[in-house]
């Protein structure tokens, strides 16, 4: 029997959270991918660049989460467990570079939930959107994350 998830959380906004980007975290993230660009890893190259410092790779905002707005919180809201999750789709829109030392505010909401039947059975698609803003209240990035729940 397929499990049921709680569709009532569609539209839910999670508590905003702040992230201060650590220099070492950018480097750790780039190295984990195996992307050794000096614009991510070399402080001297960063200083001499148009940005005045190293910047983060395009997918770095995926590391912005906190307990009240993360996958654990989502699972609790949906009423399912982590073993059923797959990552369906992901999108980043970038408006400003992400730099070490800067503090960003992240606002996440569940934009949509819908169900479909695929070749591996019934699945629910949970669309989360996160808006990342900086100290000037400018939008730095928009992140769209579609989680698939195997029902």
């Amino acid at each position: 029997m397929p499990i049921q998830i709680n569709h009532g959380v569609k539209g839910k906004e999670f508590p905003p959270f702040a992230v201060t980007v650590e220099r070492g975290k950018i480097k750790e993230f780039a190295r984990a991918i195996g992307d050794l660009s000096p614009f991510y890893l070399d402080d001297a190259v960063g200083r001499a660049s148009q940005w005045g410092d190293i910047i983060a790779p395009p997918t770095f905002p995926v590391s912005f989460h906190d307990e009240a707005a993360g996958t654990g919180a989502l699972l609790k809201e949906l009423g399912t467990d982590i073993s059923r999750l797959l990552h369906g789709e992901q999108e980043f829109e970038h408006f400003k570079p992400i730099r070490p030392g800067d503090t960003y505010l992240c606002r996440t909401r569940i934009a949509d939930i819908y169900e479909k039947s695929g070749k591996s059975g019934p699945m629910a698609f949970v669309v989360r959107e996160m808006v990342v803003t900086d100290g000037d209240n400018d939008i730095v990035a928009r992140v769209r994350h579609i989680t698939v729940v195997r029902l």
Partner: protein
Amino acid sequence: MKYATVYFEDVEIGAEMPLLAKGPIRQIQLTRYAGASGDFNPIHQDPTFAKAAGMGDVFAHGMLSMGFVAQSVTDWLGVGSVQKLGVRFAGLVRLGDVITCRGKILAKRSAKEAGRGQGVVDLELWAENQKGEKVVTGRATVALLSREES
């Protein structure tokens, strides 16, 4: 790695992105990626958990493959140039897989057409495993400098 600037005028519609091959994927990379990203889902670390979840064995974080795809774009067109990157995870990446990132230019819009300071190109992107199976498909929009402005 490439750091030279690719100018808007130099990129033609249909031009293919240089291939970027990543891997073979090892467990240690998945563990490093878990630490770096904060995604500690045991399905990427623990074969017993992955089997019990019906997935056969551990598999790579989709976001690791997306990181490879992002690198393929920035290696070619420059770090800091990606305005939009969206992907669908089309297949699982397993331990031992070699992932090749590919792409091509779909469209070009000059700064004037794009209504912004720089010209942009749209790319079709995909990544495939050593069997030629697509594991990621996607699109990107990338801003490029113009020779006229520089």
